[in-house]
């Protein structure tokens, strides 16, 4: 009995903390978004905050920006990560030395850098008075620093997109690389004997093998960027902000009465994230990522 329950008991402190802080916070947020706010004497549950959120232009503009940034960052990160993963795989195939391993570690470097630092790196590199614009000006490519396009704190969200593309590409490659590393070196011999040139091998074997994992990795990046806060806060514009920033602004700048609205935005965000998570789960089950692998 003790032996059976021991692992669960050992996990209890961690689980309790997660349940209390995460689910507790979420539940508290849900109650407050429904107008339950005893501190200001509100104890009724109603959907007023949700109705106000849905009717406000700010919410829809923010949602549009959030979707655009999340879609573009995950596609860019997916393409970059895919190229990275396949390049590493081909490098590993071609060289028998540890060269590929060194490159692999180097490409994984962005994983170790916090998002906030990544955001600052993008600011320093891509702002109009940043390193890149100064470099282009000194090379004579642009006349003035102001000729450099606004990529940081721009309404379109390029700064955020660039940060996530750079930061999440190694994550995508990290997720697909184990799949690629299961491709046996002898498969290349098999494919060559049967008439496949290198590109045929990539198209027929490498890409189909990595596609399910790649798609799931891109979905994860999408869900993450959809609900991330610090980079949009640092690199976005005041209006429209991405949904998490919009919610933060509502929460901190308004009165107590605005808080249910801010929390309603959070709950909508959480619901959308959960829905997207379920979509990923559905596809991963349907595609059976490891289908055919003994």
């Amino acid at each position, binding site marked *: 009995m003790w032996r059976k329950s021991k692992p669960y008991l050992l996990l209890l402190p961690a689980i309790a903390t997660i349940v209390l802080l995460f689910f507790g916070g979420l539940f508290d947020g849900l109650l407050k978004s429904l107008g339950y706010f005893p501190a200001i004497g509100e104890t009724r549950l109603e959907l007023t905050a949700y109705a106000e959120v849905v009717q406000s232009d700010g919410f829809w503009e923010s949602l549009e920006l959030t979707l655009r940034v999340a879609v573009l960052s995950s596609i860019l990160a997916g393409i970059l990560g895919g190229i990275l993963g396949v390049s590493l795989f081909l490098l590993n195939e071609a060289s028998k030395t540890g060269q590929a391993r060194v490159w692999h570690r180097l490409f994984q470097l962005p994983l170790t850098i916090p998002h906030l630092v990544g955001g600052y790196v993008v600011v320093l590199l891509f702002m109009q008075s940043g390193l890149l614009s100064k470099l282009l000006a000194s090379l004579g490519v642009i006349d003035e620093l102001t000729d450099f396009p606004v990529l940081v704190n721009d309404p379109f969200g390029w700064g955020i997109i660039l940060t996530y593309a750079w930061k999440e590409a190694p994550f995508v490659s990290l997720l697909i690389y184990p799949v690629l590393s299961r491709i046996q070196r002898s498969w290349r011999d098999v494919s*060559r*004997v049967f008439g496949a040139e290198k590109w045929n091998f990539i198209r027929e074997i490498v890409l189909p093998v990595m596609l399910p994992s790649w798609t799931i990795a891109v979905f994860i990046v999408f869900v993450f960027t959809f609900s991330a806060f610090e980079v949009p806060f640092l690199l976005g514009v005041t209006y429209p902000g991405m949904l998490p920033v919009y919610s933060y602004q509502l929460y901190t700048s308004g009165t107590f009465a605005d808080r249910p609205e801010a929390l309603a935005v959070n709950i909508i965000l959480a619901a959308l994230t959960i829905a997207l998570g379920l979509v990923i789960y559905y596809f991963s089950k349907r595609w059976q990522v490891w289908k055919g692998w003994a």
Partner: protein
Amino acid sequence: MNDLRILHLEKKYSKTAAAGQEPFVLQPVDLTIREAEFFTLLGPSGCGKTTLLKLVAGLLQADSGQLWLGDSELTAVPPEDRRFSMVFQQPLLFPHMTIEDNVAFGLKMQKVKRKKRLSLAQEMLEFVGLAGFESRFPDGLSGGQQQRVALARALVADPRLLLMDEPFSALDPGLREEMRELLSRIQKQLGVTVLFVTHDREEAFELSDRIGIMGNGRLLQVGTAMELYELPASTQIARFLGMKNIIPGTVHGGRFISNEGVFEFSAGNSVKAGEWCLILRPEALQLLAPGTPAPAGALLVRGEVGRMKFHHGLYQCKLHVGGAQLDCTLSRQQAESLAAGQVYDFFVLPDDLHLVGI
């Protein structure tokens, strides 16, 4: 004729040699494999047979030499353009493809239209006894079935040469036997030229039209199974073929005398004086019925019968002759008329006395 001609093909592995070891060298090989022939390279592990196979496939680059198929030279042609097929030791099917897509892979690379290639794949699957498995994935098949699929994949593209690198060595004995029969039947029906690599003597003898025996990076002898068995060119080949009755001696004045002086017979005038070995096949030692004379010119061997073992319908018997111990194969009737520990007369016909140089 689309014979495959290997001319002085050579390969040296300098980088892979471990410290203090000589690098492996495949000595220049000259060999012609006839169209529709089943040719086997037979030899122990590490003798260079797979290296030679990969050189023929184009998966390894030869240091020197040429490779021709009919009138076209293939030496510098990359493997993807040779139109050969290969079955490896492992099935190496692509796990993300269905069985029919795996089989049709070579045809797809040849840009055959989808409908046609799938129909050809289905036909070939039926040919190897796997009709109905088209839409399955490789992990749903047993090892033997997967190797059948690999065979179908290799045959469906109508290859100019089928290369096989110990394809049945990972299968259990019963399945191996079944696959040999299947391969033999298919090869005869399709008339495909096969270059087969194995270290299994039985497999080579059962399947091949001709066999090339390899050892230490050299092609030692080429011949039919019977030629190799009855007339091995060296003691190394005889030992590899499992012969144990190898008796060292010398030839002097046209006569062979074994080192212990037990065996002595006329070797003929064409045999040079020097050190030689007598190779006696176990079944060449025949029991002489008591009171009957030995045939003219036969070598008479008197020995004490030792331990007898029943094996594959025959008896394997140890015969102590002087200081030597010979292996001898007897029929059940003959064996039952003998008693262990007793001395009996045996004879060997002159044609069965085979001498090889040391």
